[in-house]
């Protein structure tokens, strides 16, 4: 017997939740309990009184599963809203990465040159290393990191995707 799987599509969800203890475990636990994928998840407090957090989740699954994910998230008691940015239309996705590269000579110069092309900023340097800060779509960050592998990549830290809809309307 073979176990078959359906074709998945990628969706970016913006989830507004009460900023309370255990909320992240509740969300992450829902995904693991029901077998949904999390490609990335970011969370931070977004309101002046620290009452609300926004969680950006990149997930993938067949359309019916995406619908289920949204419905399941929506029925959690501390969840205020769930917006499927992929479904609602144009939106901006950004990710930040800190990329540490070590080396000397030509490789060091090449790293700096490519950082310039990618508009990555140098946020730390020694005589033998750089830490670059790069912001962009996940694809762009992926490409930059791939290039840095050739130039003495030491370490990478990534935030995962944050996203917001285009235009003047709020979510």
């Amino acid at each position, binding site marked *: *017997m073979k176990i078959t799987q359906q074709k998945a599509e990628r969706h970016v969800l913006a989830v507004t*939740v*009460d900023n309370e*203890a*255990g909320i992240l*475990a*509740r969300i992450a*636990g*829902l995904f693991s*309990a029901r077998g949904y994928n999390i490609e990335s998840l970011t969370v931070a407090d977004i309101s002046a009184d620290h009452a609300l957090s926004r969680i950006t989740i990149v997930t993938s699954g067949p359309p*019916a599963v995406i*619908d*289920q994910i949204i*419905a*399941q998230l*929506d*029925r*959690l*008691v*501390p*969840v*205020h809203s769930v917006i499927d940015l992929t479904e609602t239309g144009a939106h901006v996705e950004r990710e930040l990465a800190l990329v540490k590269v070590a080396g000397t000579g030509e490789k060091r110069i090449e790293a700096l040159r490519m950082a310039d092309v990618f508009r990555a900023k140098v946020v730390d340097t020694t005589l033998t290393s750089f830490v670059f800060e790069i912001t962009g779509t996940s694809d762009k960050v992926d490409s930059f990191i791939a290039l840095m592998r050739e130039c003495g990549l030491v370490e990478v830290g990534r935030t995962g995707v944050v996203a917001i809809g285009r235009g003047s309307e709020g979510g």
Partner: protein
Amino acid sequence: MTAPFPAPATMNDAAEMSGAQIIVQALVDLGVDTVFGYPGGAVLPIYDALFEHPQITHILVRHEQAAAHAAEGYARSTGKPGVVLVTSGPGATNAVTGITDALMDSIPMVVLTGQVPTTLIGTDAFQECDTVGITRHCTKHNYLVMDPARLGPVIHEAFHIATHGRPGPVVIDIPKNVQVATAPYIVPEQIEHRSYRPQVEPDSEAIASALALIASARQPIFYTGGGVINAGPEASTLLRELVELTGAPVTSTLMGLGAFPASDEKWLGMLGMHGTYEANMAMNRADLIIAVGARFDDRVTGRLDAFSPHSKKIHIDIDRSSINKIVAADVSVVGDAGRSLAALVAGWKAAGHTRKDLGEWWRRIEGWRATRCLDFPEDKAPEAEIMPQRAVKALYEATRHLDPIITTEVGQHQMWAAQHFGFEEPNRWLTSGGLGTMGYGFPAANGAQVAFPDRLVICIAGEASLQMNIQEMGTCAQYRLPVKIFILNNEWMGMVRQWQELTYESRYSNSYSDSLPDFVKLAEAYGWTGLKVDRLGDLDATIKTMIETPGPVMVDCRVAKLANCFPMIPSGAAHTDMLLQAAEVTGTMDDEAKALV
């Protein structure tokens, strides 16, 4: 930490109460009359506060799992939330099965668990466990209360959440020092929750679309579930009215039995794996399914790609995540089952719809009914062995005029009870549907009996399931609960044995109920009345004795050992592939079928 209760609140702030006093006062204010629980170190302050509040009856169970099931029985029979009080660590973990059961079957319940003091949380203290972590996925919501001033708002909110929208269990974990420390008792002014606002009123456009489909259907069928029961007795009344208006047949899930009267000619019986032939065939051939408060569980649908292939589906459910989860709906109605049925009834009348001629549809249904799928082979001689189906039918005939509350354990006896015991009204049938918890029925019967001391409450049990919470005989004896346990004793975990016969060529691996107790002696040891019957000729008289004997009674009804529960849709099969009799059993299944539960 201040001195333990009943130390008075400080003189300069007389409004302050201990956390434990706040908890009990909140329960009183919320109208709680019964708490099922078991004391322990981390809830001693609450127990001490309970001591001072005789208006709350505390039922001392013998195991915390039984407290949760008893609360479920109380909730399911009354429509009110069940309340559980257990200690930290093992008290909480023992309750988890009952909490999960309540989640799966949408039973309103509030569980108060003690926790080690906040200063010891995370230190692996004695009887510490991560209760909120463990129960996060088996509750509708849960709380860890770190501040006694939060107790009032949290408890009021917990009851609101447990009982509004799709009902479910809510756990409140309360560290011991929070029970002892003092704070003002704050009653929230508004119970409207910031983020939790379930849609109760159905969308009028969805109702209009549903009505248009119902009015034009030629082969409609109502498929109703536990949501109709949860919506209160008026939902059942409205269902009956809508069925009368439309003339359509009705089937129901295991959880929905009683919403529509079994004696009505439009009742087709339960559907699904052990449902009737007519119910399953009608679902398969229907052109419109009106699903009300049901969730297309795998026990109901059978093989999904063959499930009711030609029908449109209207799905009415209070939980949006139930809609389109398993089966795509053509019309989705998010709302309370009762409000939705009311809107359909009102809309039907307002639009001036009239009952369609469903004569041809009913003639086909009568044809399926003619198979008499619930008949079973039987020797009717007085000395013959008792068929389990006969035992349920005899129990039904002997008690139906008494309007009993029936609970079951899980397995063959549960399905036979669902098939052969007719229910006329909601809240009379308490069974573990979603989780399928052996050990549910007896404590649930106790919970129902506590709520209705004068009603006849019968637990139809299997000898294997009953032993999972048999310690509750002590609870019955202590509170003089006159529960009747009717054991269909076939000396097997019957459903396991049946599947082994059907799927594993009768290799009966570990399914024999060996070393059974003498149930009559056991009953007597607890001060109950014990009865045993093993001849068909004595069955009716034994049941009569059971009913007429005051106090708790256990009947060891010895039944045919190898009877199978039919009809049956084998796992992985379609509704149209029902097994009606044992002769059709093949004895093996392919891997695809074996992989399904």
